[in-house]
Every structure is written in structure tokens, then in C-alpha cells.
């Protein structure tokens, strides 16, 4: 091999690389803005993304589908022995193709709800296992699921259902009302949020004893609802407003007028 020629080639490529930076830099920035998978802060995730996008191209969709089938085939055993394999397959599926929200949501549900139950059942069942142990299993699984969903949020900042899912895990598994309120609030503020997110946010505020905040929120919400859209449940929201007015002893003269 002609080492002198190789060195000249490398030096020339270095010079060309520097010379083309003003052209390539803006292209790269624009591409990055358009492709969330290339925006990863986490090196390991970025490595996975760069490789799969570049080398698998569109095949990552079908590879991820196959991995998801495999995840389900392992998950169906429903025992603690398959927890590491199931979690690994979920992570692998979402690394290969992070675009479908379906994988993130269903994967996090398996981790937070199913796996916590498997662990309790194998330790003797809900009636037998001490409450503190049940709590620990629920917490551990919930935290793993929330970490997965927070990664999902990095890819899908515009999708409220991920925030709703995190809020539900805080509510149902970690029993952390304040965090559930925070995530429902974030989801409800999004333009494409489902109608129920705003109502549940208000309900959770009530549950937390923050009636005044719930009242202010619902008063702001009501005018944005469409009475012809069944999902908006405008009459229900109005009845909640009335309930809160009674609880807060709001004078009739100051009550909300739709």
C-alpha cells in the first residue's frame, strides 16, 4: 500500500471537509430540525438512531414491527422471568423505530401495569404481600415506564397522549397526585389535546383540594367548548362549575354566566 498517497488523500479530505462546512452546516441544521431522531442528546440513543436511519432506511419500520411481535410473544408468558427480556425488546423496538407512538404507549403500559402485577403475584399475591412491598414494586415499574415515556416525549413533543400516559402512571401506580396534575396540565395546554385532558386536570385539582384553581380553570375552559361536539361534554363542565361555586360559596351575583 502507498502510505504517502493515503496520507495525501486524508489531508485533502480534511481540507475539503473544512471548505464544505459553510455549505453542509446549514443543510445539517435544517435536516436536524426536520428529523427528531437526529436531535437526540443521549449518545447511545443517537448512535442507535443514526445507524438505523442510515443503514436500515425504511426497513426499520418492518424490523420494529417484527421486534414488537417478538415482544408480545415474550410478554404473553406473564411472569417475572420474562421482565428483562420484555423490557429490552421494548427498548429495542423503540430505538429501531421511534416514530410510532403506539410502541411507546403500549410498551410503557406493559412495564407499569402488567409487570408490577406479575411481581406482586409471584411474591404471593395482593392479599398476602405487605403493602410496602407492593408499593415498591409499583414504584419501580412506574419509574421505568415513565423514563421510557420521557424518551418518547423527546421524539414526539407535539403528542399530548404521551403526557397523558405519564400523568396516568403517576396517578394510578405512583399515586402521586401533584405530578399527575402537572402532566395533565401540560397535556391540556397543547393545541391538539383531547377534550378529556382539561376536564381531568380540573378533577384532579379538586381531588387535591385546589378548588379555587379548578374553578378558574373550568371558567376559562367552558367558552372554548363546542356544545355540538359530544366529546367536549359542555353540560358536564357547566355542572362542575356550579358544584364548585357551591363548594366555594361564590355569591350568586358573581357566578359564572355562560
Amino acid at each position, binding site marked *: 500500500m502507498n502510505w504517502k498517497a493515503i496520507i495525501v488523500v486524508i489531508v485533502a479530505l480534511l481540507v475539503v471537509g473544512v471548505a464544505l462546512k459553510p455549505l*453542509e452546516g446549514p443543510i445539517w441544521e435544517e435536516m436536524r430540525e426536520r428529523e427528531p431522531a437526529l436531535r437526540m442528546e443521549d449518545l447511545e440513543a443517537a448512535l442507535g438512531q443514526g445507524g438505523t436511519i442510515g443503514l436500515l432506511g425504511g426497513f426499520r419500520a418492518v424490523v420494529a414491527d417484527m421486534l414488537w411481535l417478538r415482544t408480545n410473544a415474550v410478554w404473553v408468558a406473564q411472569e417475572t422471568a420474562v421482565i428483562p427480556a420484555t423490557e429490552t425488546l421494548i427498548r429495542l423496538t423503540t430505538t429501531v423505530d421511534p416514530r410510532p407512538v403506539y410502541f411507546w404507549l403500549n410498551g410503557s403500559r406493559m412495564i407499569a401495569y402488567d409487570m408490577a402485577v406479575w411481581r406482586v403475584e409471584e411474591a404471593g399475591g395482593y392479599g398476602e404481600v405487605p403493602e410496602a412491598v407492593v408499593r415498591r414494586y409499583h414504584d419501580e415499574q412506574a419509574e421505568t415506564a415513565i423514563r421510557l415515556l420521557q424518551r418518547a416525549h423527546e421524539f414526539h413533543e407535539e403528542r399530548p397522549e404521551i403526557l397523558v400516559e405519564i400523568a396516568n402512571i403517576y396517578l394510578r401506580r405512583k399515586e402521586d397526585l401533584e405530578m399527575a396534575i402537572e402532566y395533565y396540565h401540560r397535556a391540556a395546554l397543547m393545541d391538539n389535546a383531547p377534550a378529556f385532558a382539561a376536564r381531568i386536570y380540573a378533577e384532579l385539582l379538586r381531588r387535591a383540594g385546589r378548588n379555587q384553581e379548578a374553578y378558574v380553570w373550568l371558567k376559562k375552559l367552558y367558552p372554548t367548548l363546542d356544545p355540538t361536539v359530544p366529546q367536549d361534554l359542555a353540560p358536564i363542565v357547566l355542572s362542575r362549575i356550579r358544584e364548585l361555586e357551591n363548594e366555594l360559596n361564590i355569591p350568586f351575583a358573581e357566578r359564572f354566566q355562560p
Partner: protein
Amino acid sequence: MKKVMFSPDRIKVIAKNTFLEAVRQKFFGFLVVIALGIIASSQVFRDFNFGAPELKFIADFGFGAIVLFGSVLAIVATAQLFFSEIENKTAITILAKPVFRSEFIFGKFIGVSALLLVFTAMMTVILAVLLFWRESALMEIDPEGFEAGRMVAYADVFLYGLVQWLKFSILCGITMVIASFSNTNLYSVILSFVVLLICHLQYLARDAWTQMDFALVQVAVFMLATVFPNFQVFNIGDQVALGESIPIGLTVRIIGYALAYVVVFNLLAVFSFRKREI
């Protein structure tokens, strides 16, 4: 003695022969059949699809076939056609005539690049036809879902094909440079695949080099990020599949970036090949 001038005609002859030789190779036919089969089979695989809408899945699948098989073809065909000339001693016969080594390299490059163009065009047309046929069927089933007209931007599908062909041409140039100083076909193929991987991941080095503590490591990482072209800039498939249009300004800059590297790698291959003993 009459001075021999650089001749585009000789390049044309070498390119034509390279192209014909490549098309006659079983490997090319095999790849075409496999890639076409895979694109067509996206209809079958869509039954296993969980996450994405059907048309997006088919587009994704087709783009995957184009990228994967196009990359394999660009590396293997270039290395094979280059070394076949050397191993069969035909390179000696050609270069003993008044043919410049640069003409030999340019001819080889144009021949392989034409082969890659044919391959990419075939795949893109098949994919577009498949998408059109499936979209038409879906429009009949669910006219409300298509009130705004067709979802697939077919011009962008062809733009994707063009951008991938340019990427394959750079890959062909890289393989040519590697082949010009290496001794075996296999070594060239393996090294080219390694470089392909680096080109896809070099953006990570760029992100990392400013955060490194050691100056020496910083220099090494900076070199890695600068020496290799950034192949991620050619990944417009996700946007095309999602129905986002690619701005014309961005397209022109991507094409300019690709052409600059095509020229550079060809010149470097000529430089390296001129130093080589055949």
C-alpha cells in the same frame, strides 16, 4: 511524436463498457430481482404493521429497499468492476494504449454511476406505481379520508430517488479511492462498508468533539467529523413519507454538497491510482 490529449470519447468508451459489463453481471440482476421483490412484498408485510399508516409504511419499505440494495450495489459493483480489470490484466492492456489513468477512473466511475442511476430509477418507478395503485384503492374505500386530494407527493418520491442516487455516487467514489490503493476486492468492499457506517454516524463525532476534555481526543474526533462526508443529510425519506415537502433551496444545497464530493473523490481516486503499480 504526437502528443496525446485528454479525451472525453475514451472516457465514454470505458464508461459504456463498464456499464455493459456491470449490467451483464449476475450480481446486478440478482439485486434487482430481490429489491423489486421486496418493494412489491410491502403489500404482504403491511399486515404486520402496527405503528404507521399504510401508505407511509409502503413508502418507508420501498425507501429501505432502495437505500440498502443501492448501497450494496454501489460498493460491490465498483470494487468488482475495478478489480476485474486488474485481475484479468485488461487494465494493463488498456493503460498500455494512449489512455490516461484519469480517463480510466472517470470512465469506470461514470459506468458504475449510470448503473446506479438505472437501478435507483427502476426502484423508484416501481415504488411510485405501487403507491399510486394502493392510494387509488384506498381513495375508493375511504373517499372522505382523501377530501384534500392525494396524500403521496410523487414528485418528492422521485426527488428521494435522485438524492439517493447522488449518495450512491459518492459511495462509488469512496470505493474507487479505496480500491485504488488496496490490493484485494474483499478488502475494498469491507473497508467501504466501514466508511459507509462512519459517514452515517460522523455527526455524533461532530456533536461530541466540543465536549471532549483532552486536546488530542478533540483533534481525533474533529478529524473524524471533517474527513468523512455526512450521509445523514441525504436522509429525506422520513419527511417524504410523512408528506412534508422538501424545500427547493434545501434540495439544491444537498445536490451541490453531493456533487462537490463526487468531484473530490474522483480526483483523489485519480491521484491515488496514478501512484499505483499495476
